[in-house]
């Protein structure tokens, strides 16, 4: 690779990369994100290459392992360019047919198309699939257009043009003003205005200033930063370089958890490639600006996503938060002015620079501009990563994009904002999703987790699940978070076990108030949200557990009984063998089986196995 010494040389290189590429040459883009990796997509990539070689087509068809486009539910995913044909649930056995039919003949293989479960309609192009159609994939959209390990791919789609513009045509203050005008707010959870943060770091006194990319993302079920860092690491990197130039920093860190090996690998490759082209390091593009980025791997503690704990961890200390009465923009890493944003925030920057704050302002709501990536998981038909403009209603996200609730069940609530977010009930499904609206109803944006629950989810049990997670992840430094979560978990455990007493709800509320008011960091401060919101919206469920020893959702083992509905049971005996305690006895064909309550451990196996709904739960 030749080092680029000017903006012109960058443009020349871009033109030469693009001119060498034939836009009409077939390209099979296979998702190699973490979800599809689990489906064996790497085998798929090599099997495609082998098959093409066998047929002597290796020079006529490109195979590209790309980042994650988000529809993880339907992996392994592949898109065939230039037509944009979208195949899902692809297996190795499908390869010869894809090559003979689709690549060579241009025919569509119906079997591999996405079928909308409700209407039976088939979709050929990715953009027409309902899951994608309502999304606005400004950031994620590039994931399956590029190979994340190829800087040339990123350059081919316009990469680093924003950097060149800032270095040669904008002053640091102009960049900050543009980011301020875009009204971008931090995507890591707090929603703090990014431009204002940059400005205060720029203005802070200090010999060395740092910019940091937070790729710690510890929420269970959330993986948007992961997918961006794995699928398009240069976009975050470019944002960081622009930020560093605006802030006046020459050193940056990418803090990424060790459990994200592909993100660690891909960002390291991206840094190396950018350095070789002179887009990182000394005298970037001949501008005189120096900026180096190092990757630091975190141990995977939830609390290390908190900015001060993250910085302590970066320094090699125990990852514990400290009070932020002096902002990290003034005294952060090594007590120097430090600007921390998460991956998604950084990835927005090149877009804002290239397309302008006015364009960005047209997307989203009054208080929250741009798009937001959510990881939509739980009891929806289409789980995956979705990127939507701020202000889209929960209903649109859950039903139009998520395809509604699976198994014909009824929607109950959605937990947004990760474990320390809160549940939002059906009555608020028309809520436009943005920073302020989510906070108003007692939840939060957090980093964008969205866990959908259905009628079979017990809200007390759900709160218990999140409180247990938070209790395990609490660093333990401050008393309210450490001791408070421990006590909260005990109370919730008692309630779900039928040992709740009058006054428990009020005690939970009192305890929650202290967690919120008195905790040292935001993790403790928000940790009571699951309990508070489930009490706020589902108080009757708590009361049923406490007063009637009844779990209305049929979840809490100590409070439920499985029974055979005699009139529905044909005595097929399907449930007899799987019962781990031999509690079910076969009587005779056409006679209902008998369930011995004394032996039943309420594992629910019979309930899950019976196709005829002959096992009841009360």
């Amino acid at each position, binding site marked *: 690779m030749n080092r680029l010494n000017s903006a012109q040389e960058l443009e020349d290189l871009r033109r030469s990369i693009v001119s060498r590429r034939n836009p009409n040459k077939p390209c099979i883009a296979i998702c190699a994100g973490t979800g599809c990796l689990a489906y064996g997509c790497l085998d798929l990539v090599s099997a495609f290459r082998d098959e093409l070689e066998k047929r002597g087509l290796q020079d006529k068809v490109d195979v590209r392992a790309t980042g994650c486009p988000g529809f993880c539910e339907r992996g392994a995913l592949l898109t065939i360019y230039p037509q944009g044909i979208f195949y899902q649930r692809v297996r190795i056995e499908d390869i010869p047919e894809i090559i003979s039919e689709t690549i060579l003949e241009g025919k569509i293989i119906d079997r591999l198309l996405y079928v909308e479960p409700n209407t039976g309609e088939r979709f050929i192009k990715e953009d027409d699939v309902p899951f994608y159609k309502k999304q606005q994939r400004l950031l994620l959209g590039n994931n399956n257009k590029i190979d994340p390990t190829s800087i040339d791919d990123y350059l081919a789609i316009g990469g680093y043009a924003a950097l060149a513009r800032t270095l040669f045509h904008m002053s640091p203050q102009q960049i900050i003003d543009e980011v301020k005008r875009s009204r971008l707010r931090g995507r890591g959870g707090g929603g703090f205005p990014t431009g204002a943060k940059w400005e205060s770091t720029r203005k802070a006194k200090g010999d060395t200033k740092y910019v940091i990319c937070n790729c710690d993302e510890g929420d269970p079920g959330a993986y948007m930063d992961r997918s961006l860092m794995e699928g398009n690491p240069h976009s975050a990197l470019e944002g960081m370089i622009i930020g560093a130039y605006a802030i006046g920093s020459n050193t940056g860190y990418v803090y990424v958890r060790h459990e994200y090996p592909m993100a660690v690998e891909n960002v390291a490759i991206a840094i190396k490639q950018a350095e070789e082209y002179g887009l990182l390091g000394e005298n970037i593009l001949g501008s005189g600006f120096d900026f180096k980025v190092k990757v630091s791997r975190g141990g995977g*503690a939830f*609390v290390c996503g908190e900015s001060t704990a993250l910085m302590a961890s970066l320094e090699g200390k*125990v990852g514990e938060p*400290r*009070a932020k*009465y*002096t902002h990290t923009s003034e005294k952060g890493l090594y007590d120097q002015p430090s600007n921390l944003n998460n991956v998604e925030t950084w990835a927005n920057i090149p877009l804002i620079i290239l397309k302008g704050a006015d364009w960005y302002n047209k997307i989203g709501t009054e208080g929250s501009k741009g798009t937001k990536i959510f990881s939509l998981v739980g009891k929806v038909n289409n789980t995956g990563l979705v990127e939507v403009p701020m202000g889209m209603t929960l209903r649109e996200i859950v039903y139009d994009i998520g395809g509604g609730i699976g198994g014909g069940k009824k929607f109950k609530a959605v937990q947004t904002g990760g474990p320390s977010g809160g549940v939002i009930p059906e009555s608020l499904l028309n809520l436009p999703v943005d920073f302020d609206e989510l906070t108003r109803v007692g939840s939060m944006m957090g980093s964008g987790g969205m866990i959908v629950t259905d009628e079979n989810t017990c809200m007390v049990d759900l709160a218990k699940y999140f409180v247990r997670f938070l*209790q*395990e*992840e*609490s*660093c*333990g*430094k*401050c*008393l*309210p978070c*450490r*001791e*408070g*979560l*421990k*006590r909260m978990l*005990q109370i919730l455990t*008692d309630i779900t076990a039928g040992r709740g007493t009058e*006054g428990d709800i009020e*005690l939970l509320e*009192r*305890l929650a*108030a*202290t967690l919120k*008011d*008195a*905790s*040292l960091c935001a993790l403790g401060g928000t940790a009571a949200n699951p309990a508070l919101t489930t009490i706020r919206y589902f108080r009757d469920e708590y009361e049923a557990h406490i007063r009637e020893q009844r779990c209305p959702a049929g979840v809490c083992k100590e409070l439920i009984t499985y029974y055979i509905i005699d009139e529905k049971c044909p005595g097929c005996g399907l449930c007899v063998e799987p019962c781990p305690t031999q509690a079910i006895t076969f009587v005779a064909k056409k006679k209902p089986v008998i369930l011995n309550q004394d032996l039943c451990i309420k594992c629910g196996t019979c309930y899950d196995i019976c196709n005829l709904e002959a096992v009841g739960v009360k």
Partner: protein
Amino acid sequence: MKDRVTLTIDDREIQAEEERTILEVARDNGIDIPALCYNEGVEPYGACRLCLVEITKNGRSRLVASCLYPVEEGLVVKTATEQVTANRKMLMELLLARCSGVKVIEDLARKMGVEKTSFRPEYLEDNECILCGLCVRACGEVVGTSAISLVNRGVNREVASPFLETASDCIGCGSCVYICPTKCVKMEDVGDTRTIHNWDVSFRLKRCQVCGNYFAPEKQLEYIREKLNLPEDFFDICPNCK
């Protein structure tokens, strides 16, 4: 000299040096704010949260840990609002649940109007340690040995010697013992031996060549002598006989 600022604490106008904390300034002016993890000998830490106060700045109020919050011009501080008191009481209830039967905690709770904890009796613990971290900070910041540290996370957090074995860097100075607010670090001097049970360490004590009393661990005296570059016979005589 540092700049002075004027602030209001509990309706009293008070002048104070910049960079000092609300807690320090309040206590200097005879206004009591409870705190368990604070000691003027070490850096403030903000873990026990009992020193919460309400501050109002630019028309907005919030609760902050007064041991960490620096005084500012025009700041309005209230040390005992209803919200502050309610939070302190809940914190004491949490401490009572952790440390049932620990006298220091019970006394402080009673002083704050908390007679008992609302948490179930079957879950009460009899921990003496409140994890304020004072011993660890004294050992690191004042003594400079860092022989002990806080280990593990969350509910498993504890003060411990490295790998829960003998604290090999401990010099037996006893700073951890003196600074502990609940007196949970146990030390005893018997004959020529000092033992600190919590860190599994024992030390030979130095005998004064004049009075014959054992007065300090040899390892501690050696540590001080080396650090301050003192003559070899400096500690042959105890401070009382010098």
